[in-house]
């Protein structure tokens, strides 16, 4: 199974979930995704996802100076983003339940 493709489909929800906890910047989001087990996610995919969500009106951003390098753009979630996250969560929960049931039936049959 190509996990990369699956991850790409879930990336919007995963990014929204991280940003919903606290405002943060792109590279930190990548680190948190990897700590959570999304090893195969590409950096460029995360940056592209952030830009798409921002352009779609689901995220806010602000520039914050950093002593460790260039100024960082912190992304935060807004009301539209929270609404999208809530709907995505329901969809994922439903799909996961369906998949679990399907896989359990398969195992029982085996």
């Amino acid at each position, binding site marked *: 199974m190509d996990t990369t493709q699956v991850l*790409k489909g879930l*990336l919007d929800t995963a990014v929204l979930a991280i940003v919903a906890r606290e405002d943060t*910047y*792109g*590279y930190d989001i*990548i680190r948190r995704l990897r700590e959570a087990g999304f090893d195969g996610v*590409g*950096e*460029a*995919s*995360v*940056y*592209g*996802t*952030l*830009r*798409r969500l*921002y*352009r779609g009106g689901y995220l806010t951003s602000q*520039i914050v100076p*950093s002593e*460790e*390098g*260039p*100024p*960082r*753009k912190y992304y935060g979630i807004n009301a539209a983003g929270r609404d999208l996250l809530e709907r995505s969560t329901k969809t994922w929960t439903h799909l996961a339940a369906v998949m679990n049931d399907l896989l359990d039936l398969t195992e029982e049959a085996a």
Partner: protein
Amino acid sequence: MTTTAAATTLTPAAEAYLQRVRKALADLPEDEQEEILGDVAVQLADLAPATDTDLETALGSPEDFAGELREAAGMGTKPTPDGLWSALGRRLDEFRNRPAIRWWMAQWVRLRPYWLATRGWLLVASISVIYNGDPFVRFPLPEVLDEAWVGGAVVAALTWLSFRLARSPRRGRFVDVAFTAATLFYVSITLSGAFPLTQSVDELHAGASYRGLLGTDGPITNLYPYDLDGNPTQVLLYDQEGRPVLTRPELRSGGYEPLVSDGTLIIPEDGGAIAIPLDENGRPIPNLYPQEERPSPYRGVQPTIPTTTTLQP
């Protein structure tokens, strides 16, 4: 944020990587590019100093990175140019990817902030050197309009403009290139020593094709030799190579122009004559300048001299 801000903190390798990503995103709106590159620069700044790993190994090629980013952002793929420009672009990319060129590009990225900070001064100072000769009465302020403070103000304005142009690489690219070209042009002229462009009359005549006798104020149109008693006398003047000294080069074919003491004064200028001031005894007063020059009728024939006149008593 801008890549200029990033450029001050990124390593040369990271800056080179970022520039290739920028190129791969060049068809996107400028604001969008800056937003994306600002995010990427943060990661490059964190990655590059912490690891010896080549960035392309860690992140993939800049072009692939930009392609993946585009796909995730729903921006589509970069339009593919075709034909001659495409071929030239590929050749240029190959050239830029040569190790030696990449090394020089990295040096340029490292030195670029210094160039941005100094090119305004270089431009003003060069122009000032070229047109004023010695512009540094109050070094390092070059003089503009004969004032060092004006020069300082112009340098400050151009330095501000220099960094401003560097922060808006697309809109200000033409002006940026023109700025750089003008600076390099005037600096090269200054270093070549082909200045000042404004010359004194002496320098102008010394370097021109004028072959007559020159004074500090321009061509000498006549000479009036006197003997020790103050009487006009006749002499033949030659230069160090034995050539007749001509006060008017157009008379070269006629030999030289003598001044005689017997009452005939050769005036080569359209028959005019010199009125030489006389003392109470009727003798010419020597070395009295300025002497008035006035026309008089032509009165004689000198076969080898264009015109002759008679000295007025």
